[in-house]
C-alpha cells in the first residue's frame, strides 16, 4: 500500500449530464488484493463513477491511472482489455443467446476464424463452476433462466474474462441467500488471488462481511474513506444521507388491526407447480409480509391475486365475497381496488421513454377522463398531490421517466397506483436497488396507507424490511406457506430458519415436512 503505485487511481473526475452534476472532482484509489466497498444513496454518483471506470461514459475532466500509467477507455471493450470488468446492476446478458454464448461473448475462443464451440463450452463450464453455479446448463438460453440464475451467469461471465479489477454493482440484489454465500466465498478467494474488487451494495450486512475498505459518496463527491469496521452502521448512514439518521422503520401500531374485517383472503390457492394450497388473510390496516428465499412462489402468489395467472385453483375472497379476477384491469376495478407494485419497474412498472405525467396517469386514466377525453385539470391536480405526497424529485412532469434516478422511478410506480386509492396493495420487492433515504420514505408510506385502511401484502428479499415493516410474515417454501410469524416472533433467526425450511428453536406448529 505504501510506496508502490496503487493498482488503480482516479483523480479529479467530473461528469455532468446536461445541467446535473453526477460527479464532482471524485477521487478513488483501488488496491490489489482488497475488497473496496462504495456506499452512497442512489444519485450520489456511484453508478457514474463505475461507468467511467468501465469505459461506458467518458469523464468531462480528471484522469485515471492503472499501474501508475494514465489510461483512457473509449468503450467497455477497451476497459475489459485493460482488466477492468464490471457486473452491472442492469444485467448485461443477451436473452436469446445461450449461457455459454454469453459467458464468452466479449472474446470467444476461435478456430479457423469461427467460434470454437467445444472450447466455448469448456470455458463456460469452468466459469460456472468457479462462480459456484455448476447447476446451470451451458446450453440453456438466458431468457429461460430466473433472475437469480441470470445474475450467477453474469458473475461467471465476469470471471471468465480474467479481470484484475472486478466491479460488482448491486450484483447480489436478486440472489438467494444460498447463492450470496457462494458468491462471497468466490469473492474472498479472488481477493486472496490478488484481484481488486469494488463492491457496491445497499445491504450493510454484506458490506460488513466483505469489505476491507469503504468509500462513501454523496452528491457526486467522495465524502469519506475509512477502514471497514471502524464506523457504526448509524454513522455510515449519516455520512451517506448527510443528515441525522433516526428511525428508519416507522413504529408499528400495538395490536395491528387484529380485529378488522379480512380484506383479502385466499383459500387453498394452487397454480401449476409453483403455488401449493396457499391460504392466507390480509386485514384492512395490516401489513403482511411474504418471506422466504427468492423464487419460492411469492411472485406468482401476487400475480395470482392480480389476475395474471390462468388455470388457478382455489378461492380468492375480497371483503369475504368470492371473486374471480381475470386480468389486471379487472383487479383494479372499484369493487376490488387492487394495485400491484411490480418487481421490475423498468419493464412491468414504467414506460421509460414516456413522460412522468403520462406514466403517473396510466393506471387511473378511466377516472381522469370523460367520454374518452382526459380531463387535464383533474389530472394535474391528482398528479400534484402525488408528487407532493411521495416527494418525487423530478426536473419536470414532462421529461421522460427514464431520466429519473432509480428511487424516484420507483416512487412514480407507487404513485401511479395510489392515484386510484387502492384498498389492497401488493408490493413485489419494491425497494430492490434503491437508496436508503427512499427506502425509508417507502416504509413510512406503507404504514401510512395501512393506517388509512389499506390491506398490504409485501414481498421482500430483505429480512430487515420484513422485520421492520410487517405486522405478520408468511414464509413461503416451495410454493406453500411453511410458517406464519406474528409480531415479536418476526426475527432474523426465525425468518432464515423457516426460509430454509429447517425448524428453529421456537418450532412452528405442526407444519409437517422435515427439511
Amino acid at each position, binding site marked *: 500500500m505504501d510506496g508502490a503505485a496503487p493498482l488503480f487511481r482516479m483523480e479529479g473526475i467530473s461528469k455532468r449530464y446536461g445541467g446535473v452534476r453526477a460527479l464532482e472532482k471524485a477521487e478513488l484509489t483501488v488496491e490489489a488484493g482488497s475488497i473496496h466497498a462504495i456506499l452512497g444513496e442512489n444519485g450520489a454518483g456511484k453508478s457514474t463513477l463505475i461507468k467511467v471506470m468501465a469505459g461506458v461514459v467518458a469523464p468531462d475532466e480528471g484522469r485515471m491511472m492503472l499501474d501508475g500509467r494514465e489510461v483512457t477507455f473509449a468503450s467497455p471493450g477497451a476497459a475489459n482489455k485493460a482488466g477492468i470488468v464490471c457486473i452491472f446492476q442492469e444485467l*448485461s446478458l443477451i*436473452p*436469446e443467446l445461450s449461457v455459454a454464448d*454469453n459467458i464468452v461473448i*466479449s472474446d470467444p475462443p476461435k478456430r479457423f476464424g*469461427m467460434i470454437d464451440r467445444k472450447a466455448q463450452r469448456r470455458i463456460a463450464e469452468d466459469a460456472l463452476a468457479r462462480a459456484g453455479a455448476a447447476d446451470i446448463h451451458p446450453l440453456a*438460453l438466458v431468457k429461460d433462466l430466473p433472475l437469480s440464475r441470470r445474475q450467477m451467469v453474469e458473475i461467471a461471465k465476469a470471471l471468465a474474462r480474467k479481470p484484475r479489477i472486478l466491479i460488482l454493482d448491486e450484483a447480489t440484489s436478486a440472489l438467494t441467500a444460498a447463492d450470496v454465500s457462494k458468491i462471497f466465498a468466490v469473492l474472498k478467494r479472488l481477493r486472496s488471488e490478488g484481484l481488486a474488487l469494488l463492491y457496491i451494495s445497499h445491504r450493510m450486512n454484506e458490506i460488513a462481511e466483505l469489505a476491507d475498505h469503504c468509500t462513501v459518496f454523496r452528491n457526486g463527491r467522495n465524502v469519506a474513506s475509512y477502514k471497514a469496521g471502524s464506523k457504526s452502521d448509524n454513522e455510515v448512514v449519516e455520512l451517506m444521507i448527510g443528515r441525522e439518521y433516526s428511525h428508519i422503520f416507522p413504529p408499528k401500531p400495538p395490536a395491528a388491526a387484529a380485529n378488522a374485517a379480512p380484506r383479502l383472503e385466499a383459500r387453498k390457492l394452487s*397454480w401449476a407447480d409453483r403455488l401449493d394450497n396457499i391460504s392466507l388473510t390480509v386485514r384492512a390496516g395490516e401489513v403482511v409480509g411474504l418471506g422466504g428465499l427468492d423464487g419460492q412462489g411469492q411472485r406468482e402468489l401476487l400475480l395470482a391475486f392480480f389476475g395474471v395467472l*390462468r388455470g388457478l385453483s382455489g378461492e380468492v375472497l375480497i371483503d369475504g365475497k368470492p371473486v374471480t379476477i381475470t386480468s389486471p384491469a379487472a383487479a383494479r376495478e372499484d369493487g376490488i381496488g387492487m394495485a400491484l407494485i411490480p418487481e421490475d419497474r423498468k419493464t412491468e412498472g414504467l414506460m421509460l421513454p414516456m413522460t412522468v405525467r403520462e406514466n403517473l396517469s396510466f393506471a387511473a386514466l378511466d377516472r381522469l377522463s370523460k367520454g374518452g377525453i382526459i380531463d387535464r385539470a383533474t389530472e394535474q391536480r391528482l398528479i400534484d398531490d402525488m408528487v407532493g405526497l411521495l416527494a418525487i424529485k423530478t426536473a419536470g412532469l414532462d421529461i421522460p421517466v427514464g431520466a429519473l434516478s432509480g428511487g424516484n422511478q420507483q416512487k412514480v410506480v407507487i404513485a401511479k397506483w395510489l392515484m386510484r386509492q387502492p384498498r389492497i396493495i401488493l408490493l413485489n420487492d419494491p425497494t430492490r436497488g434503491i437508496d436508503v433515504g427512499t427506502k425509508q420514505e417507502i416504509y413510512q408510506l406503507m404504514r401510512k396507507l395501512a393506517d388509512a385502511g389499506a390491506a398490504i401484502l409485501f414481498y421482500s428479499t430483505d429480512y430487515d424490511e420484513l422485520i421492520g415493516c410487517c405486522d405478520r410474515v408468511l414464509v413461503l417454501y416451495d410454493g406453500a406457506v411453511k410458517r406464519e410469524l406474528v409480531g415479536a416472533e418476526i426475527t432474523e433467526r426465525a425468518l432464515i430458519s423457516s426460509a430454509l425450511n429447517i425448524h428453529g428453536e421456537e418450532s412452528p406448529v405442526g407444519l409437517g415436512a422435515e427439511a
Partner: protein
Amino acid sequence: MKDWRYWLAEQRGTLLALGIFIVMFVIYTSNHPAGFTANVVQTAANKGVLLAFVAMAQTLVVITSGIDLSVGMIFLLTNCLASWLVVGTPMQTTLGVIAVLAAGLLCGAINGAIVIYGRLQPIVATIATGAVYYGVGLLLRPFPGGSVNEDLADAMTGRFFDLVPASLVVLLAVVLLIWVPFSRSVLGRAAYAAGSSETAAYMSGVPIRRGKFAAYTLAGLLAAIGGLFLTFFTYTGEAAYASGNAYTLFSIAAVVLGGVSLFGGKGSAIGAIFGALAFRTIGDLLFVFDFDPLWQPLFQGVILLVAVSLGAFALFRVRNRLEWFL
C-alpha cells in the same frame, strides 16, 4: 446429458419450416401427373431458389432486429446489371459475375452504413435506398431486354449428373460458404447479440457495429446472387417494380415461416430457406389441383396465416399472462 433437447429447442423453428415444406412438397409431387421425377424437382428448385436467396438476405438483417425493404430492389438491380455484364467469353462472363456480386455487396454496405452510422431506422432507410436501387435498375433497363451467357445460364438452371438441380447445389454452397461461417463467427454472434439486446451487447464489449454492418452487407450479396439466378432463368434483365416489391414482402413472409423472430436475435437462414421453398410450393399446389391462378395471392395469404398461427399455438398453453409479451 440432455444437450440434444437444447439443440432441438434452438432448431424448432427451422425444423417446423422443414416439416411444413416436406408436407406440402409431398402433396404436390404425389398429385403431379409426372410424380416425383428429376424434372419436377428441377422446376420446383429453380422457382424456389430465387426467393430462398432473397429470404436468406432478409434473415441476416432481421436477426439484427432490423428489416431490409430494399432486398427485392437489389435483386432487380443486379438482374438488370447482369443482363449487361454477364455476357461474352468465359473470362468476360466471370468478371461480369464478380461485378454483379460486388454491386450487391455495395448496395448492402450502403444500407448498413446508413442504418448503423447514420442511425436511421432500418425500415425508413431501406425504403429510401430501395427506391434508389430500383431507379438505377430502371436507368439500366428502361425496357426489358439484354442477354446473358447462355452456357452459364443453362448450366446453372440444369442438373448435375442429370439428377441434382444445379440451383440447389449452388444454394447449398452458399449456405456452407456464407451462412455457416457467418453464423459461427464473432461477427455473426455480434449480429445476433445486437438483435437480442443491443444494450447488453454494448456493455459486453461486443463489436455491434461491425456485426450489423456485416449482416447488411452480406444481405446485399445474397440478394445479388438471387438477381444473378433470375437472369439465368429469364435470359433478360427487367426492372419490374411489382416483382421487386413482391420479393421483398415474400422474403419477410418466408423468414417468419422459417422461424426467424422479427424481434431479432433468433432464427436461422436455413429455416428461412425452407420457409421460402414452402411459400413457393403454394402456387404449385394450386396448379396441380387445377385452381384458377387468380386464387394464388388469396391462398398464399391464408397459408401464411395458418403457418404463422402454428407458432402462436404455444400462447394458448401459457398460464402466466405476462409471458404473452415476452
